[in-house]
C-alpha cells in the first residue's frame, strides 16, 4: 500500500510537471499579450509593465520563477485584476464552483443510477424506452441550451425562480439542474448497460435460486458489480465540474472558477492561466486516485499496485 501511494504521488508530480510545461509553452505561443488594448499605449509603459510582472525576462527563466513560487504556494499576481493574487482569486471562486458541482454530481449520480437500474429492469418496456429517449436528449442537447431554456421558462416567463447569483437555496435550482442534465443522462445510459450485463451473470441466477427477492437481487447483488463503470466516470466528472462550467456560470452570473478560467485565457493573464490549469490538473490527478481507491472498496478483486 505504501509502495502504491509513493508510486501514485510520483506519477502525479510528473503529470503536473508536464502539464505546466505544455501550458506555459502553448500560452506563450498564442499571439497577443496582457498589455494589448484598444487605447494606444506607449512602448515605454508596456516595457515598464513587463518589467513589473517579470515578463521581460527570457521564457525559461519566467517558467522557473513561476514554478519556484508555485512550490512555495505563491501563484503570483493577476495581471488583469489589479491588486489581487491568483491564490486569492482561485480560493474565493473555487468554493462557489465546488459547491455547485458537488450538488450537481450528487444529483446526477442518484438520478442516473436509479433511472439506469429501472430502465435495465424494465428492458424493452415503455419505461425503458421513455428513459432512453430522455437520456439521449440529455446527451445531445448542450448545456447552454438547457440553461437558457430554464432561464427563459422558469426565470423570465413564469417568474418562479431567481435568475442571478447564488444568494438563497432557490438560486441553486436552475444552475444545478442545468449542470446535472448531461451527467444524469450519461450515467443513466452507463448504468443501464452495465446493469443489464450484471443481471445476465450466473451469480444473479444463484441469488435467485437462493430465494432472494427482486429488490435485494438488484440493489445488492447486481448493483455492486454494475456500479464500477459509473465510478470511473464520476471521478473525473467531479473534477471537471468543480473547476466550473463556464457556460452555466456565465448564464446565471455565478462568480465561479469556470468564468475566471475563460476570462484569464482571453485576457492573456499569464499567471492566472498557469495557476488555474495546474489547479485543475492537481484536482484531476487527485480524483483519479480517489476513484482507484473506490474501486478497491467496491471490488475486492482489484489490487492496488
Amino acid at each position, binding site marked *: 500500500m505504501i509502495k502504491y501511494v509513493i508510486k501514485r504521488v510520483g506519477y502525479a508530480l510528473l503529470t503536473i510537471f508536464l502539464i505546466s510545461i505544455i501550458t506555459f509553452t502553448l500560452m506563450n505561443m498564442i499571439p497577443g499579450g496582457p498589455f494589448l488594448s484598444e487605447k494606444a499605449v506607449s512602448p515605454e509603459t508596456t516595457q515598464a509593465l513587463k518589467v513589473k510582472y517579470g515578463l521581460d525576462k527570457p521564457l525559461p527563466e519566467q517558467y522557473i520563477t513561476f514554478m519556484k513560487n508555485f512550490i512555495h504556494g505563491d501563484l503570483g499576481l493577476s495581471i488583469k485584476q489589479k491588486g489581487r493574487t491568483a491564490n486569492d482569486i482561485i480560493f474565493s471562486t473555487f468554493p462557489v464552483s465546488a459547491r455547485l458541482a458537488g450538488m450537481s454530481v450528487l444529483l446526477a449520480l442518484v438520478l442516473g443510477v436509479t433511472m439506469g437500474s429501472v430502465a435495465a429492469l424494465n428492458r424493452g418496456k415503455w419505461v425503458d424506452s421513455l428513459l432512453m429517449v430522455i437520456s439521449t436528449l440529455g446527451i445531445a442537447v448542450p448545456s447552454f441550451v438547457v440553461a437558457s431554456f430554464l432561464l427563459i421558462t422558469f426565470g423570465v416567463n413564469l417568474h418562479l425562480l431567481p435568475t442571478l447569483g447564488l444568494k438563497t437555496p432557490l438560486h441553486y435550482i436552475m444552475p444545478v439542474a442545468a449542470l446535472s442534465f448531461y451527467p444524469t443522462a450519461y450515467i443513466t445510459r452507463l448504468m443501464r448497460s452495465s446493469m443489464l450485463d450484471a443481471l445476465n*451473470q*450466473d*451469480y444473479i*441466477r*444463484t*441469488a*435467485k*435460486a*437462493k*430465494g*432472494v*427477492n427482486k429488490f435485494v437481487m438488484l440493489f445488492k*447483488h447486481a448493483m*455492486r*458489480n454494475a456500479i464500477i463503470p459509473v465510478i470511473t466516470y464520476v471521478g473525473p466528472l467531479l473534477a471537471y465540474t468543480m473547476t466550473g462550467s463556464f457556460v452555466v456560470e456565465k448564464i446565471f452570473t455565478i462568480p465561479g472558477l469556470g468564468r475566471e478560467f475563460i476570462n484569464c485565457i482571453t485576457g492573456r493573464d499569464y499567471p492566472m492561466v498557469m495557476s488555474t490549469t495546474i489547479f485543475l490538473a492537481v484536482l484531476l490527478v487527485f480524483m483519479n486516485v480517489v476513484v482507484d481507491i473506490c474501486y478497491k472498496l*467496491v*471490488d*475486492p*478483486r482489484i489490487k492496488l499496485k
Partner: protein
Amino acid sequence: MSANCLLDIENLQVSFFTPAGEVKAVSGVSYTLNHGEVLGIVGESGSGKSVSAYTLMGLIANPGKIVGGTVDFNGHQVHKMTEKEFRKMRGSEVSIIFQDPMTSLNPVFTIGSQLMEMLRLHTNKNKEERKARAIELLRLVGMNEPEKRLKQYPHEFSGGMRQRVMIAMALACEPKLLIADEPTTALDVTIQAQILELMVELKKKINMSIIMITHDLGVVSDVCDRIAVMYAGKIVEIGSTDDIFYNPKHCYTEGLLRSIPKLHEKGHERLVPIEGVPVDLLSPPAGCPFAPRCDKCMKICLRQMPEYTEISPGHKSACWQLQKEQFENAEGGNKE
C-alpha cells in the same frame, strides 16, 4: 402419489416463445423421484434436461413458460406457484448447483456473507448462529480453516473449492431435493470425482434426493439410482442404472453408450458417433424425434411418436422397435 414420493412430474410441457416461434424445449416429460433417490438426467445440449429441472424451481427465464402438465413437489403444486411462493421454496426445500462454479458466486461478496445470506433468508438463526452454521457447513464440504475462508472472496478460491462452497450453500437449509446441473463439467477429472463423492456422502447424511443433470455417462453410472435419457424435449428411456447400461432398449441410448470409450477392451477401436444433428425444436417432427438419425428407422417412426413400452418394472422406453418386437412375440407362433 405414494408416501415415499417426493417429486411427481406428469406430462410437463415447457415452451420458449421466441420471435422465431414457439420452441418446445420440453414436450411431455413425466417422471417421479423418491426420497433419498438419485435420478440422472442425461442427454445432449438442447435436449431439455436443464429446462425440465429448472421448471420446478421457477427458474426458467423469460420467454419460457409451462404450457401443460403438472409438477407435484413435496406437497406443492409447482405449476401453479407464484414468484413469492417460489422464493420461499428455493433454497429451503429445493436447491441447485450450477455448472460453472467460476461465475456462479458473486465476486464482490465474501464466501461467508453469501453462505450466511442463505441462512438469513430461510432460518430464524441470529448472526452468531448463522456464522457458526456457516463454519460447520464449510467443514462439512471438506474445507480446511473454515473461519478464515468465511472472510475470503471467490477469486481467492480454485474451481473445486468454489463448487464446494456452492454445495455448502445449497445444503445450508437441508433441502429435500438438490438439483445438480452438470456440477462437474467445468472441473478437472480428479476434482470431479471428489465433488461427486462429496455429494453422495452428504446426500446420505441429510437424506435428500438428487437430480443429476449431465451429459457425462460416467458421472451418472457412479452415483445415480435411476437414469432418464432425454432427447429433443422427451424422455426416450428411463430405468435403473443397470437397465440403462446393460439392457438399453432405445436406439438413442444404445448410440450414447457406443460413443463412450471403453478402457477394458483391447486394441484402439474407433468410437462410434451418432450421425446427424439434433432436431430443430422450432418445428419438431411428427414422429420419433430421433428417427432421422436412427439406423433402425422404419416408416412409422417418421410419422407417429411411439408410446412407452414397459420392458421390466420401472424400465420404460419409447421406440417403435420395441412395439414391433412385442407385436411379433405375441403374433409369433400364429403365423407359422
